[in-house]
């Protein structure tokens, strides 16, 4: 069995994405807690968002168009079911503390994911493009493949890093060579398998290499640059660092300039300050074991 086949076979066993729902547990124990605050936590957590979208899109399949944002799903499910959902997925004891293979603590992965989502949304806004709401969701879950590789397959990052360094490859190219698959492709495949809308799984799958996507896709372009910006800003960087290639074609399509990116970066850093409490709640020492 090739390494790729081995990884894909392990992925079929994954039933929920790890998340860090410490703050959600605190809210569950508080009878006066507002559903609004719970919604805020879920919509900033890639694991909880993906698990929630998986459940709602399976339960309400065929009923309507597929749901693409956590807020929409919470509104559909209603308070009690949302609470049950958080309990059943967010605090399961098997959930990991640290993405060992990729040298990412839970709070770092959360910070990075939220930064990608905010940057994609801010970029759309600064460019005056009014992108769809699911731009945030797609950005938030774009790195989900890393959790899978790190937590379930226990991929070790060193051989990938050393190959990238030795042969001058981007990190995802080195993943392809060592594992037979990269974390973006794997994340996209999992989301597709879980029945998330193709609008989201395509963005996740191609967000590192948008030039390989056939056709034009505004959300993909925004998430691709959002990911570049999050890495340059440095929020929650892992061992892969900034070793990814920004697409000149996407930059040209969006009409990007350094000045535009500087404005978006500054907006994102200010917005991140407001979400800081979520990252603190997800610090390693406060995560449930």
């Amino acid at each position, binding site marked *: 069995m090739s390494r790729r086949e081995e990884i894909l076979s392990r992925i079929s066993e994954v039933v929920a994405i790890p998340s860090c729902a410490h703050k959600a547990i605190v809210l569950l124990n508080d009878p006066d807690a507002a559903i609004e605050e719970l919604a805020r936590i879920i919509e900033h957590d890639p694991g909880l968002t993906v698990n929630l979208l998986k459940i709602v899109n399976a339960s309400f399949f065929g009923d309507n168009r597929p749901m693409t944002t956590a807020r929409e799903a919470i509104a559909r499910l209603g308070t009690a079911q949302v609470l049950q959902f958080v309990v059943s997925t967010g605090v399961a004891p098997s959930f990991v503390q640290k993405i060992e293979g990729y*040298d990412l603590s839970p709070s*770092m992965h959360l910070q990075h994911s939220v930064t990608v989502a905010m940057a994609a949304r801010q970029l759309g806004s600064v460019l005056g493009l009014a992108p769809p709401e699911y731009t945030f969701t797609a950005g938030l879950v774009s790195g989900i493949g890393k959790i899978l590789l790190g937590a379930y397959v226990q991929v070790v990052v060193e051989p990938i*890093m050393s190959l990238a360094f030795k042969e001058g490859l*981007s990190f995802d190219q080195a993943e392809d060579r060592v594992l037979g698959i990269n974390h973006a492709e794997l994340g996209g495949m999992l989301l597709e398998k879980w029945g998330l809308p193709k609008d989201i799984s395509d963005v996740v799958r191609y967000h590192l290499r948008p030039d390989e996507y056939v056709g034009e896709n505004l959300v993909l372009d925004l998430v691709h640059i959002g990911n*570049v910006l999050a*890495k*340059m*800003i*440095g*929020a*929650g*960087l*892992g*061992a892969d*660092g*900034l*070793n*990814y*290639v*920004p697409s*000149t074609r996407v*930059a040209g399509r969006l009409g*990007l300039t*350094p*000045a535009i*990116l*500087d*404005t978006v*970066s*500054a907006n994102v*850093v200010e917005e*991140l300050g407001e979400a800081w409490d979520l990252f603190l709640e997800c610090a390693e020492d406060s995560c449930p074991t």
Partner: protein
Amino acid sequence: MKTHVVTISDMKFSDKSQDVIVTYSLGSCLGVTAYDPKMCIGGMIHCLLPSSDSARDRARVNPFMFVNTGVPMMVRKLMSRGAVKSRLVFRAGGGANMRNDGLFNTGARNFAALEKLLVRNNVKLTACDVGGMIPRTMFLYLDTGRVVIRSLGKEKEL
């Protein structure tokens, strides 16, 4: 001993020799330290962007976001606590870029802004670890002014 954490677009300083100042996860951002060895006082800034030229309002609210406003502000703060400008030792870390990035070069632009500022003030950078594609964490130890860069599990002194 106290550890002061510098976040993005932030600056911290101390005159307590047992203290450490640290900034985590420098990507394209630039970390700059200034230290007066005689007074054992030093500061660290984590700048997001090179210049406030097109964002003057933002720089008024937070000058530490930009190299061209933040570094001079850090020096003024240190001087107000007794540091002497001519004694200050400057070191820098960070300023990484994406692979094959010919478009934005934020890391390179951040470092160029620092070099320009230092030349204008006739100040020499004692050491730096900038560029490449790696994340960096930067420490300043107030007892000696020692600056350490940690990246990918390895540490080196600047």
